[in-house]
């Protein structure tokens, strides 16, 4: 094997690729050749490191130096200074940019990583996802070997049941029990399905696992196939994730080449094959029954359960469907045992959970913490708090099915049941932070708009009910709210929750109910006082010029409707009747004299 004195890891996740990491990698190759280091230093494109905010991220090993927001111009300096002369480029260190201290902190010492426990993300950012040998070197396919050669299918299922692993896609159903149900269905043909249709806006953990560690998903699917007696698997992945699709294709090819997938795996007599199916942009297809119909090539409409997929699923055969993150937990559970898994997290929610931290937060990115960690730790210790000195208002979890959690509940431990108890839900793990400038009525309207758009139209409560709710919310944010609107929303919400056909409809009212529960005063302010407390809703705000105005006339020139009057060097005035609230004046003002009220 070739030996390199140094490895340069360049993040090839979606965030960093979007910020130009592919160019960095190309430049790195060129510069290494130019300095004659190509035999000593090896650049590797890895999966996501998690800290997308700092992208593109470059880490130099064995030192573990963490460079952030690296631009093509910096590559020459990294190569000539760090890799050639051994001098760390201090100005590019992540911490040099974040704080006054230019300390060279390694990954484990950085506050962003210190509080994390990486199980599902164990290999993301560590190995090259396009090279099976690197996965093998990190215990890859060891669990599969253990299952196929040393365990019976019943023992595999029993191990997963004992671990207490619950579905990471949102519902939280015990994974082992699901496997057991499917294994009991008698049928010559059964299917394993991996749900990679990560539709929740603001959630990208499954994408990172697929992009950073695709083999762990293939290995787990094969193990699941062995456990329930299936020989074929489908991965249903969003078409919006081209990098993930490409790496899955490479991984399947490589695994087949090594005899770890396909006919007679490891000469155990067990055969398993995996196909990839692309979604086509329908949120409802994340619902398991709809997803299976979509794989069959039809309109992805859900159907009532029972029959459950374990009895009658894909192509009417017994099927087992698990989400990507759930599957990524399987190999370590088999390798290290259920007790190890139970040593993390809480009694009812063992293990860890990956969250996609986004919105108004300093360190946006992917975070994996033990279940039971308080929200506060995630948002302040790992996320680094709210930027711009703004006030935290709420954190939204669970996407369009979840709810908004206010500041007073930040010490609630994160687990399935505690989040449900406060009107939100775990969901797939999106965590969007909102500050004082975000209007909670508008956020509820945003989610309802999403649901109305994505409702498949099969059942009436969802198709018509959510539409009526959206109309009321539209009215409220445009200043035409009426007394009784809140009550109407509540009544509709309860009815839809009780009567909709599938999970999408049943949870669609949650964003409205949870904001009504914790931010009712904002609704009331919109309806009664015709004011938006966050100064967000256009129809309800006024632009006002304050005493800081120097009379420079810049705003007057910017105003498209001539609503601003005033003499040079004298405080200007906005006529609210003419103003169309476009905000052009505020962008142009260099003195911060124009405010929203």
């Amino acid at each position, binding site marked *: 094997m070739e030996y390199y004195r140094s490895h340069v890891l360049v993040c090839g996740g*979606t*965030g960093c*690729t*979007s*910020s130009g990491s592919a160019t960095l990698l190309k430049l790195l190759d060129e510069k290494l050749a130019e300095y004659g280091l190509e035999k000593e230093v090896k650049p590797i494109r890895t999966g996501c490191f998690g*800290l*997308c*905010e700092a*992208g593109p991220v470059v880490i130099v090993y064995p030192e573990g130096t963490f460079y952030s927001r690296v631009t093509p111009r910096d590559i020459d300096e990294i190569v000539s200074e760090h890799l050639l002369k051994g001098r760390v480029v201090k100005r590019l260190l992540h911490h040099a940019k974040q704080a006054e201290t230019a300390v060279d902190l390694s990954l484990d010492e950085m506050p962003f990583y210190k509080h994390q426990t990486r199980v599902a993300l164990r290999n993301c950012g560590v190995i090259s996802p396009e090279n099976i040998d690197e996965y093998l070197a990190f215990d890859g396919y060891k669990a599969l070997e253990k299952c196929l050669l040393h365990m019976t299918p019943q023992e595999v299922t029993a191990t997963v049941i004992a671990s207490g692993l619950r579905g990471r896609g949102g519902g939280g159903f015990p994974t082992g029990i699901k496997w057991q149900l499917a294994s009991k269905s008698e049928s010559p043909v059964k299917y394993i399905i991996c749900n990679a249709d*990560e*539709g*929740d*806006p*603001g*959630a*990208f953990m499954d*994408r990172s696992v697929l992009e950073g560690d695709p083999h762990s998903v293939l290995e787990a699917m094969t193990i699941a196939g062995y456990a329930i007696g299936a020989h074929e698997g489908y991965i249903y992945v969003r*078409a*919006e*994730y081209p990098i993930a699709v490409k790496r899955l294709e490479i991984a399947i090819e490589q695994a087949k080449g090594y005899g770890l997938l396909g006919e007679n795996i490891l000469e155990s007599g067990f055969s398993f094959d995996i196909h990839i*199916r*692309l*979604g*086509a*942009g*329908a*949120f409802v297809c994340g619902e398991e029954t709809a997803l299976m119909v*979509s*794989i*069959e*090539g*039809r*309109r*992805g409409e859900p159907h009532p359960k029972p029959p459950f997929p374990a009895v009658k699923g894909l*192509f009417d055969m017994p099927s087992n469907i698990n989400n990507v993150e759930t599957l990524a937990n399987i190999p370590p559970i088999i390798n290290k045992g259920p007790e190890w898994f139970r040593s993390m997290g809480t009694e009812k929610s063992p293990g860890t959970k990956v969250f*996609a931290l*986004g*919105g*108004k937060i300093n360190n*946006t*990115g992917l975070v994996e913490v033990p279940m039971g960690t308080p929200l506060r730790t995630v948002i302040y210790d790992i996320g680094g708090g709210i930027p711009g000195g703004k006030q935290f208002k709420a954190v*939204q979890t669970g*996407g369009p099915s979840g709810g908004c959690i206010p500041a007073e509940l930040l010490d609630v431990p994160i687990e399935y049941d505690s989040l449900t108890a406060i009107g939100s839900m775990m969901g797939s793990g*999106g965590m*969007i932070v*909102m500050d004082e400038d*975000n209007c909670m009525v508008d*956020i509820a309207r*945003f*989610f309802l708009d999403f649901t109305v758009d994505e409702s*498949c139209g099969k059942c009436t409560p969802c198709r018509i009910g959510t539409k009526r709710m959206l109309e009321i919310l539209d009215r409220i944010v445009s200043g035409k709210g009426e007394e009784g609107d809140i009550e109407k929303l509540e009544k509709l919400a309860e009815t839809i929750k009780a009567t909709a056909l599938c999970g999408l409809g049943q949870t669609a009212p949650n964003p409205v109910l949870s904001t009504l529960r914790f931010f009712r005063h904002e609704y009331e302010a919109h309806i009664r006082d015709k004011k938006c407390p966050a100064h967000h809703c256009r129809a309800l705000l006024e632009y006002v010029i304050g005493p800081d105005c120097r009379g420079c006339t810049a705003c007057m020139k910017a105003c498209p409707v001539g609503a601003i009057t005033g003499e040079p060097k004298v405080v200007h005035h906005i006529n609210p009747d003419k103003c169309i609230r476009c*905000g052009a004046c505020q*962008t142009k003002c260099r003195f911060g004299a124009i405010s929203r009220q």
Partner: protein
Amino acid sequence: MCDCQNAYAELDAIILRHKDEPGGLMPVMQEAQNAYGALTMDIQQRIADGMGTTLSEVYGVATFYAQFALEKKGKHVISVCMGTACYVKGAQAVLDKLAEYLEIPVGSTTSDGQFTLQATRCLGACGLAPVMTVNDEVFGRVTPDQVAGILDKFQD
């Protein structure tokens, strides 16, 4: 022989590849859209005939999923991410500005066929919010006043 035979040669090859595959209809439609830019009625009819199903079945699938287009899109497709992370960081203002700049409503194409403007679901690049893409190129942390500069690059 007329040109229409040749025009559909690629489509027929796609159909042949997936015809006997269980659930092969969607892969056919996806590949056909990649090859022809849109699933026009003629293409849908040919898919229906080739796959041994009805036009209504194909049309039903085409109109159910957001990614199938019945009409050709512009030369450059602008997508503004309307995922939650982008939305709370001001994606709506970026989208509004684009619509104003191009003088077209969201979801339509400019009369010269240059640009199609669309709102899209979460692209998973939440760390760069708000995000917009032009064709395959990603632009992160976009503000409304950057819009004109970004589009200039693509204008013929």
